């Protein structure tokens, strides 16, 4: 049986979301959820993997509630989780601008922006909580941008027509993360959180069908240890690094979620990846990562390419009437602020037509000349100064004088572990929050919504819903290292590490990662086709086989060994990539970030097939290289009725 001959299993249903009016569901769920007596909470241990916006806020909040939290991150400090790199802002339906915003509009925009592939209950809850997040962050001292009157400033982001994005210059993620990190630090000092930095989760321990702990490696000593708990929360982020080149941090990885998937957690919509339209184009083969330029730049920058193919004149020599401001032309009402998937694909299209700019024709201009004329250089500097500096540092070009060159790059993964309304995976006691789960963004995430979701999950949703699980399972049998299941998981982990070290081949972990990434970008990137995906699915097992034959990892397992860390992560990418391609192959519609060349409207827009694909695809693992089982969760739209998205 080949990998593509997958079986379709029983549908998966979200049993936790209450019925009733959408705006009452969260209240209802919170009321129905069982509580744990405050005095009993310290008897419960919760493992949290990751310290980004979701993990950091969850760890701090659970500890504040009285739980004993054991938390992990691979970085040397919880403050360095990659949420820190988010630039633009965080959405909240505060309606401080009195511009017609409301919880319902944020809900509507998010469901529509996600191309009708997200759950209404979840998205509505997210919109409701958004306002509390801003309150919480301000109370923590997050220095949001303010106006002269001392009140909070907001700006617009892609895919919406209201100004609801709160920001802290171009470093919103940093400031929000530091807020969560500081709250977490307070709990570490109080002894409520046991923090393990430079420790990477390598496997999940499932005993009697419940998540009971993890296997983790101390990255300094190489020691592999087991940690036990009453519940495990994965907040380990997305899997964009499958593509090798992405805006993710170099060490962001999929190991925690992939290992959980292998242990029984369903993986939903793996092919839903977001290609961000405004990244700095790559300069050569040495490129190790791509750098994002915040979407907020599209507020004032105008995107264009020359009208003529192969026009190599420098930008200032191209007269106004020979420029094609293609987003403003095709989408007059949203203009440069169309959602990310649309902006990215449009950039790809003009480059494919041979009108791209810069080396290799892989770029479009993002021009601030008009903004500088209109607002003055000073105002532009105040708004975007740090982004312009960053651009100049990387490209050695001055964006105040020469238009920026941008090109799409892998940025975010909407797919992830399948979770119910309580954010619980299909393994009881295993929760997934933030980018690690699949829940709220459907097939495309709107700008400034990742920060919102990460913090909503961590500060408010999980701390409410995990109570229910713990209250219903108050006295779980203690698990020790001697338990046969634990011994087995431990042995598997050690075997894998030993094998990686033993092969002693002739190729580096990076070379495999790069090869896989190029393959994925070509066939499972911005545009996907049946033929391309089949090619990728044929190639991936070959790379995997070659990997285990030719990988070279110097050093030993009992020391700080960055090659070993890397190789171990590539092992999981090589399996996850296959599932992503299969998911992309099976979904023969186009929706959001998933664009199937076979499914487009006559004018080249994505064509959804709601009758066939209005579901989340949750995949169940069988065995490496063996076809997984597909479980569908049907999506019901009672409030926002699916229409072809129109931003024209």
């Amino acid at each position, binding site marked *: 049986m080949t990998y593509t001959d997958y079986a379709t299993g029983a549908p998966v249903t979200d049993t936790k979301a209450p019925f009733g009016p959408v705006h009452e569901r969260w209240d209802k769920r919170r009321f129905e959820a069982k509580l744990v007596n405050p005095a009993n909470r310290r008897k419960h241990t919760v493992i949290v993997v990751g310290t980004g916006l979701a993990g950091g806020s969850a760890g701090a909040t659970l500890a504040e509630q009285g739980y004993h939290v054991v938390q992990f991150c691979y970085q040397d400090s919880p403050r360095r989780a990659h949420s820190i790199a988010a630039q633009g802002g965080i959405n909240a339906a505060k309606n401080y601008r009195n511009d017609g915003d409301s919880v319902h509009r944020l809900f509507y925009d998010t469901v529509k922006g996600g191309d009708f592939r997200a759950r209404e209950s979840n998205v509505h809850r997210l919109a409701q909580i958004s306002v509390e997040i801003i309150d919480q962050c*301000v*109370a923590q001292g997050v220095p949001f941008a303010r106006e002269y009157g001392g009140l909070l400033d907001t700006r617009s982001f892609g895919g919406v027509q209201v100004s609801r994005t709160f920001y802290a210059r171009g470093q919103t993620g940093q400031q929000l993360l530091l807020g969560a990190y*500081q709250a977490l630090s307070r709990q570490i000092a109080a002894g409520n959180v046991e923090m393990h930095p430079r420790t990477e989760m390598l496997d999940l321990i499932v005993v009697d069908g419940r998540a009971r702990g993890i296997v983790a490696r101390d990255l300094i000593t190489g020691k592999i240890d087991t940690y036990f708990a009453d519940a495990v929360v994965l907040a380990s982020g997305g899997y964009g690094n499958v593509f090798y080149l992405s805006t993710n941090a170099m060490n962001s990885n999929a190991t925690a979620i992939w290992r959980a998937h292998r242990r029984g957690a369903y993986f939903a919509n793996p092919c839903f990846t977001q290609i961000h339209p405004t990244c700095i184009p790559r300069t050569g083969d040495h490129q190790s990562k791509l750098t994002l330029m915040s979407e907020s730049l599209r507020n004032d920058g105008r995107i264009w390419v020359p009208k003529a193919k192969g026009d190599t004149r420098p930008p200032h020599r191209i007269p106004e009437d020979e420029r094609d401001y293609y987003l403003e032309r095709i989408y007059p009402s949203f203009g440069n602020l169309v959602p990310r998937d649309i902006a990215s694909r449009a950039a790809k299209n003009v480059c494919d037509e041979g009108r791209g700019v810069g080396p290799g024709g892989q770029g479009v201009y993002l021009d601030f000349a008009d903004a500088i004329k209109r607002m003055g250089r000073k105002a532009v500097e105040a708004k975007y100064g740090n982004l312009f500096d960053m651009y100049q540092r990387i490209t050695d070009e001055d964006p105040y004088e020469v238009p920026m060159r941008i090109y799409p790059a892998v940025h975010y993964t909407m797919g992830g572990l399948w979770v119910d309304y309580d954010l619980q995976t299909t393994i009881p006691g295993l929760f997934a929050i933030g980018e690690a789960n699949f829940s709220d963004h459907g097939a495309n995430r709107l700008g400034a919504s990742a920060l919102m979701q990460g913090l909503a999950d961590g500060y408010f949703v999980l701390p409410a819903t995990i109570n229910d699980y713990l209250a219903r399972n108050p006295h779980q049998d203690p698990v020790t290292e001697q338990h046969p299941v634990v011994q087995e998981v431990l042995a598997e982990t050690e075997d894998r590490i030993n094998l990686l070290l033993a092969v002693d081949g002739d190729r580096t972990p990076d070379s495999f990662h790069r090869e896989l990434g190029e393959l994925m970008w070509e066939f499972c990137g911005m545009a996907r086709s049946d033929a391309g995906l089949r090619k990728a699915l044929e190639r991936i097992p070959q790379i995997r086989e070659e990997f285990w034959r030719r990988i070279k990892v110097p050093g030993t397992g009992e020391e700080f060994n960055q090659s070993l860390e890397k190789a171990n992560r590539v092992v999981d990418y090589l399996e996850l990539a296959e599932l992503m391609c299969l998911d992309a192959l099976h979904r023969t519609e186009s929706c959001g970030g998933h664009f199937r060349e076979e499914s487009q409207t006559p004018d080249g827009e994505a064509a959804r097939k709601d009758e066939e694909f209005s579901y989340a695809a949750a995949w169940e693992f069988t065995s490496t290289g063996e076809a997984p089982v597909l479980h569908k969760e049907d999506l019901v739209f009672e409030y926002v009725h699916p229409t072809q998205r129109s931003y024209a």
Partner: protein
Amino acid sequence: MKLTLRVWRQKNAGAEGAMSTYEVDDISPDMSFLEMLDVLNEQLILSGEEPVAFDHDCREGICGACSLVINGDAHGPERTTTCQLHMRSFKDGDTIDIEPWRASAFPVIKDLVVDRSAFDRIIQAGGYITAPTGAAPEAHATPVPKADADFAFEHAECIGCGACVAACPNGAAMLFTSAKVNHLNVLPQGAPERESRVLDMVAQMDAEGFGGCTLTGECATACPKGIPLMSITSMNKEWLRATRKAGKR
């Protein structure tokens, strides 16, 4: 470009270290400094040697992981993080010395990787505002004058990389500590813990074995985020104020 690299190699915390010399070729001026080290490491792995260990993650200048002293300068010749330093800042044929942060509070773990957990403990001592989740008032309940918000932001930009400590001849952590003290102490939300915050954080900074400040200004020169030297002055003022207030109680 062809370069000669002299890199600090140290097997682990307990081992003796020394500089080792390597050659790299075909370096593009568009590469970042870390991409140049990637080239070296690929070369080393294939020749059966252990690659050079160094901390890095986001590679866009914000996570604060990268931490190399390049030709005697923390983060190298430009005012930026190591990951945002590009090879166009060097010339073909250059010899480049690469060393780890040096401070007794930042012990070397391996090669160019050091342990900066002392910074985390300084934050844990008081670098936060006590605002348990759910307890927050409406965000607009307390307006913050723009000047104060901007002052807070300027200090909140600190990425905790430790370049200030590495550059300081005394291995002092004053700039790091003052950045957080000033960020939180200027905000109305931070006012209730204003005194205990600065006293506790300075006490923890001392306990970690960082040196004292002699106002050489090296920290602010090395800081990739441009935290100003005056930050230390402001913290001193906060500390004196807190000490006086504590004395009166």
